[in-house]
């Protein structure tokens, strides 16, 4: 199968799922996420429906939340909701890639909630802890 698209001045011939000529494209989708392999590189694209774009703008400030940078497990929680913390205080320790990683308070504040418990495993982007005003 061959699909041709004109984008601006350029025409692109696509051969979905096939390795033909010098432009080989493979595509897989999962919900609104697209994975496209093109000329030896894989790209991830997220389709942003209008509803989600607006929701993002209205969301709370990202600086209130500790978001998991990678999948892992909680080794220790050093704080509980209501605790006052100063910038640099240890909040929790996670383990990922067989290494321990401490997370410290990035500003002064009060722990609003701890969303994980010791021993719990989590995926990337999980909100681990939320920090309120001091």
């Amino acid at each position, binding site marked *: 199968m061959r699909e041709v698209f004109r984008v601006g001045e350029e025409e692109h011939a696509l051969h979905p799922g096939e390795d033909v000529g010098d432009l080989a494209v493979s595509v897989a989708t999962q919900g609104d996420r697209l994975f*496209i392999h093109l000329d030896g590189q894989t790209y991830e694209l997220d389709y942003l429906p209008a509803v989600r774009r607006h929701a993002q703008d209205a969301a709370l400030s990202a600086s209130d939340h500790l978001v998991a940078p*990678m999948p892992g497990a909680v080794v220790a929680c050093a704080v509980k909701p209501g605790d006052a913390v100063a910038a640099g205080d240890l909040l929790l320790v996670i383990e990922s*890639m067989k*290494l321990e990683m401490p997370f410290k308070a990035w500003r002064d504040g009060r722990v609003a909630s701890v969303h994980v418990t010791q021993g719990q495993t989590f995926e*990337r982007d999980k909100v681990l802890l939320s920090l309120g005003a001091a």
Partner: protein
Amino acid sequence: MKSVLVANRGEIALRILKTVKRLGMRGIVVHHALDADSPAVAFADAAIEITGATPVAAYLDDAAIIAAARRAGADAIHPGYGFLSENAAFARAVEAAGLLFIGPRPETIGLLGDKVRARAFVAKHGYPVAPSAVEDDDPPTFAERARALGAPLLVKPSAGGGGKGMRIVRDMALLAEELERARSEGLRYFGDGRLYVERYVERPRHIEVQVLGDAHGNVVHLFERECSMQRRFQKIVEEAPSPALDEAERTRICETAAGIARRAGYRNAGTVEFIYGGGAFYFLEMNTRLQVEHPVTEAITGLDLVEEQIRIAEGAPLRLAQEDLRRTGHAIELRIYAEDAGRGFVPTTGPVLMLKMPDDVRVDCGVREGQQVTAAFDPMLAKLVVHADTRDAAIDKARAALARVILLGCRINTAFLSRLIDTAEFRAGDLHTGLIAELPEIAADPAPDAGTLRTLLAVAARHTPAVVEAARRVPALHASIGEWRN
């Protein structure tokens, strides 16, 4: 031996089963429920489910695995790498159950698997080791003796392996803190908080030598592998031969390795690891098992190391003498990891929505389409192994093959590997274990150029139902112009 149970998972379980079945034996594999759809389970003659408090714990349950082997009528157990492969108690329990352990004798694992005992053994026989301080020698003075070695230092758990719990200390003020963290990690991963510290060789190369020993006292080496391309102390590209060694050095390091194995009465396949820098080499550790990177040795020697392991376990003498062993060409292995090189090599997870591998090079792959890559296991998914006449040709072949690895649904490191082996440093063979950390500019995938971006958006639009439907909903010309008519 008529039947072998593989006590492992992923690519190595499949790789071992392939040799077992090629030799006309029955191949059995144990598996956790998360691996039920894996290629190894599909390929095995029989698969037995094992359970555990965590998925990893299932593969560490020695009693359950031995019970599975007996129930399935296996004659032998191959432990692969990781998990129970370097556990002397497991090897002993396998033998006590009347089964063959495809690996070294338990006492050899006990001696060489303990880094501290192994170093002492090697030093005692006159082979080179790096200056070090061992906690067990005199615990109260350990920190003091460590400090006396001078920076930089490398802190390691005595019972460790695979880079876990290792820390480089350049600022001695941080020594106490780093010792505590290494101890905590050692306790958690190996159930053993003892540490040792050695002088860290700056810009070191990691060079290791494959050895084989039989039950009749014969030991040969199968040349060296260079494994200096590491991130987080773990190898991601390995090659044979090492571009660093001339023939005299090659002979020296390979004969040292064979000598250590001979002194230990080593039986089966093993690897002696060295740190190499400034023309000198030091014994690092011995791995008493098959290594992840064994295929590069297979590529240059034409041997099947699993077949040799099985023959040795059966008591057969080595088939080749040292002078019969030859190597040809250059081989490179590239480890395909579920990880994001642009974000500090953090593991990634996701479904394997599409999987296509090149078919003109060796690919040892532990996943298949439809499987889920989870955080439960090590993120290495597959290995790609190329062999060519020269190192340059092998690099070109590797890059061509990497470009044809298609795994969609979970980010992998193939584009990073391709950039890495195309750097001037790698091309020149100018390698050291810190090189990847010195090349932050190649870590992240470059942003697509304008032409690529347009292609991507066109493909994306075509595959996004909302966009396709919106296009269909555009009203017909007459409807849209409503009341307006000429």
